[in-house]
């Protein structure tokens, strides 16, 4: 049975979740940002904005832009110098992510596979910081009944009806939202007094533009060495990294030390970007990915070839943020379509009998 909540009761719902001890993040039109809609904690000056996808994703709730891995302190003792490492158990807030979209929620399951996999093996890693945040987050997803020209989640198996990563899946209907509990944690929320049982049918969901990902299979590696293609397809790239920072699934990071005094400091993990020249540059000066074309090729291949080979899933959810926000107007869908055509051309020319 679906549950229903009136649209005007949403602020009350968010307030009650806050009163229940949650830090509640919801899409809000931020002041003085030229209309950007960002996830922010409620109670500030932002205005709740539920009619479009946020400009940036919510991945920072699980993987903060910068976080402390541990702190260190050099101490002088009677026996000489000691170094003390202090690693505090992460104590995250109970968090509600309200108004994520299906693409955002699925991205969380991608991060899970890397930072807190359900099935551990000798090769998997369970990050204590990520795990603690993940266990404490509840995701209330808002289903998309509309989309924009940059969206392409319909390229993936469940499209805009993808429910993985969501605890509650809410459909916009007249005057309110139908809420489907996906997990027990979600059920506790929809069982609340602001919701009532409903016989309403969920509305049809958005159909977005599609990229032929099945047709792409294997093709990317066929044209790996075709630098003519990669240089032309990516010549607009400025290596600014917007695509990776705005991506809900990009997770690459850097590790650096910061001193807080002359004897104390912290080791930090921060977002990094494969689009940056220094990302792979070795101290000798050698760089295996020296040009923007090499780096863009790696980003495309990581998402659509390497990651699927290693994890069985595509490292993209079709949210379109990289398309919407690229300052040079580079559209990864066009690169993928061109790559597919180029690979097909290449294999066709090979099949021509001599």
């Amino acid at each position: 049975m679906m549950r229903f909540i009136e649209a005007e009761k949403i602020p009350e719902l968010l307030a009650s979740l806050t009163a229940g001890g949650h830090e509640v993040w919801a899409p809000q039109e931020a002041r003085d940002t030229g209309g950007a809609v960002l996830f922010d904690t409620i109670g500030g000056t932002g205005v709740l904005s539920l009619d479009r996808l946020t400009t940036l994703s919510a991945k920072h709730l699980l993987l903060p832009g910068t976080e402390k891995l541990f702190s260190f302190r050099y101490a002088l003792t009677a026996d000489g110098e000691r170094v003390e490492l202090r690693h505090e158990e992460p104590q995250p807030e109970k968090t509600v992510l309200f108004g994520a979209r299906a693409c955002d929620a699925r991205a969380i399951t991608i991060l899970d596979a890397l930072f807190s996999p359900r099935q551990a093996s000798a090769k998997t890693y369970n990050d204590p910081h990520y795990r603690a945040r993940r266990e404490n987050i509840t995701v209330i997803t808002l289903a998309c009944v509309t989309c924009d020209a940059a969206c392409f989640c319909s390229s993936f198996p469940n499209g805009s009806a993808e429910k993985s990563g969501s605890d509650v899946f809410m459909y916009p209907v007249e005057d309110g939202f139908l809420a489907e509990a996906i997990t027990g944690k979600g059920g506790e929320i929809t069982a609340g007094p602001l919701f009532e049982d409903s016989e309403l049918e969920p509305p049809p969901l958005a159909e977005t533009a599609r990229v032929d990902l099945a047709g792409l299979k294997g093709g990317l590696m066929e044209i790996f060495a075709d630098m003519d293609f990669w240089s032309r397809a990516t010549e607009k790239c400025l290596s600014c990294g917007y695509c990776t920072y705005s991506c809900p699934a990009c997770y690459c990071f850097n590790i650096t030390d910061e001193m807080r005094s002359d004897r104390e400091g912290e080791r930090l993990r921060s977002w990094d970007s494969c689009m940056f020249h220094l990302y792979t540059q070795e101290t000798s000066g050698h760089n295996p990915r020296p040009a923007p074309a090499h780096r863009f090729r790696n980003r495309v291949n990581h998402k659509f070839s390497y990651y699927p080979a290693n994890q069985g899933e595509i490292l993209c959810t079709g949210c379109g943020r990289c398309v919407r926000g690229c300052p040079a107007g580079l559209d990864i869908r066009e690169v993928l379509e061109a790559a597919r055509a180029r690979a097909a051309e290449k294999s066709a020319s090979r099949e021509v009998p001599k």
Partner: protein
Amino acid sequence: MTTVAQAGPGAGTPLIPEPATVVGVVAETPNIRTYRLVLDDPAVMEGFAFLPGQIGQLSVFGAGESTFAISSPPSQRDYIQFSVMRTGEVTRAIHELAEGDKAGVRAPLGCAFPAEEWRGKNILVVGGGIGMAPLRSLLMHLLDHRDDYGRLNLIYGARTPADLCFAEDRQAWQERSDLDFVATVDAEHPDWSGRVGLVPTVLEEENPDPADTVAITCGPPIMIKYTLQSLDKMGYREEQIYTTLERRMKCGIGLCGRCNVGARYVCTDGPVFSLRELREMPDEL
């Protein structure tokens, strides 16, 4: 497929190093120093186990962390050794470490040379410059198990006599009758009475028979390139040749993203690869 050597008990949890103390520093060349470290927790030091070819992250807290091959052999239980060339910020901080100073170690990481699989075979080790670091660990391990292997050749070269590492070891290796060791420098030098010639040239002159032999090479990229050509000319097949790759690394656990070559991560799937595996990987070295 390179055998994944199961790391034994290691130092440090995945991203948090084990505090360690420098117990020895050896100046190898004008810009290479060898650091011997003991983990501060005696139980962790006691249990520490690795195999040649595996790597570690060496930290100077405040400066950061960099990846190095472990250059001591597994039989060396008194310390863990890294040989470090001064090239950037972290290595400069490492070069400032003196005996008694504190550091951090995350090790072992990555896959080892499949030395177990090579039992009964002849072994040819070809090293250049700092590339001798992982090969030193391997060579000493092979010498520890000398009876398990056939003919053992080592060709080690550097630009000048001053750029050759491991002087004490080289002396000992020269004296062994069960190791055919040729040290070479690129050009004539007043301090050098030994062999002169580039490593690939000397390799071809020595010409160790490829039959039932495994060749392992590590050195500067240009040396590796020509060494592989020489080995090919000498009749070595791709699956007989192994090398160990270097990439910029941060996490060492296949997560931070930068050290991939195609779908494989040098830090976890490597750094040891056979030439056959390398040929199957996309050309992005």
